[in-house]
């Protein structure tokens, strides 16, 4: 099985097989600000470094995303992904129009079928806010099926606290891998922990990891109570 590096060596090690599985869809779930987007940025820029074809889909403007990316110390001047963005991108992203979004991503996959491809959707939450959940499940299901036809990996983010638990569960059911980043109460303490809830091809993990994301990278260590 070919692997796609997450962009963080420390995360690759705990994913079970040095990266995300090929032809897979991976979801990062967590509260705003905890670092899901950072995983997406690093994943894309690791792909660009390796000359993969990379597509970044976001409802935000390219300028807003680049500001965030630069805050993580990522150099955005050398190589850039294909932007499917709210504004400023080569393609227009409209979270209300799932058909157009699906078409744009599928066309990009088809045009670059000879290359290894990385797609990031940041975030899937607006889609769930603006469309009936069933429509989003269908959209995502079809997109994942398409990803599996090509040498591609899809990485999506999902905000915790904005959706019903059954919606979160259904979204997790659709994908091959789920990384959960969240705070946990342990007695009086509040600790940010990461959990690999599932990852295709890897032994299911039950452990939690402490993590810290900064400009210099990501530190991950097993959490012991």
């Amino acid at each position, binding site marked *: 099985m070919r692997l796609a590096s997450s962009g963080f060596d420390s995360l690759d090690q705990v994913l079970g097989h040095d990266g995300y599985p090929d032809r897979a869809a991976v979801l990062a779930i967590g509260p705003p*600000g905890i670092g899901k987007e950072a995983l997406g940025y690093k994943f894309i820029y690791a792909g660009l470094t390796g000359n993969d074809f990379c597509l970044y889909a976001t*409802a935000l403007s390219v300028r807003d995303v680049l500001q965030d990316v630069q805050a993580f110390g990522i150099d955005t001047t050398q190589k850039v992904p294909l932007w499917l963005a709210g504004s400023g991108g080569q393609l227009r992203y409209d979270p209300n129009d799932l058909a157009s979004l699906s078409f744009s991503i599928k066309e990009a996959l088809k045009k670059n079928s000879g290359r290894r491809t990385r797609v990031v959707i940041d975030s899937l939450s607006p889609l769930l806010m603006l469309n009936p959940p069933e429509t989003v499940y269908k959209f995502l299901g079809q997109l994942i099926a398409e990803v599996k036809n090509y040498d591609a990996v899809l990485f999506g983010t999902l905000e915790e606290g904005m959706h019903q638990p059954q919606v979160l569960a259904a979204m997790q059911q659709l994908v091959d891998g789920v990384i959960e980043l969240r705070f946990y109460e342990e007695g009086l303490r509040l600790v940010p922990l990461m959990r690999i809830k599932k990852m295709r091809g890897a032994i299911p993990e039950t452990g939690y990891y402490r993590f810290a994301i900064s400009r210099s990278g990501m530190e991950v260590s097993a959490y012991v109570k």
Partner: protein
Amino acid sequence: MSSDLVVTVLPTLVLIGLTDVFSLYAVYLSISVWRGLVVPVYRSRALWMALLGVFAAIVFTYEGLAIIVPSSPLASVEVREILFAIPLGVILVLINRTANTVIKLDYLRRDVLFWKELRFVFGAVVVLFYILFYSRYVYFLPDAQGFALALYFPALVYGAIVIAKGTTVTRDTTFRSHVKWFGYLLAAFIAGNVIYFLPISLVIDLVFFALTSFCFYKMARFLVPAGRLSASQ
């Protein structure tokens, strides 16, 4: 002396203790969140929460001690006012950070009531508030304090409206709870200050300070959604 001990000193000490426990635990939670988050806007909000908690603990403790030892020169109205103005400004800064969070939480980063433009004016109000408030003591301008408060309250109300309106845009239930407790905190804080000027026991004032710090603890608790680790996990 014994009746004074029962009526004033013991309740004051208990209320100071409660206030400090809530405030300092909220500081601890805020710092934990600040350390765990990555995105600057959210981190900044957590950091200012922690700062407000530290100032709240200092000011409320000082107020309590001033009630117990009113004859001390340190319990003078001037010293208490100087101390009290610090968290007032920090509350405005926290409103600023929360309003920025409101915009960041919206997937389209839409503006709320011209906040993106007016936040600079808001920042200037914070600076002006401190200058005017303290100019009474530096330049002996008693009227300046009135101007400071005349600037302060419209800014406070405007900021509160921006946050309340912005909360209707986001579906983040944790953030909504955070803002709800922020509203309760402001209400308890204002009520405590109104009571200060009424001819009733100052210990009642401390009850409102304890309530304020409880609201503050709840705000910190809802800075981020948190799961619970069970023993088996």
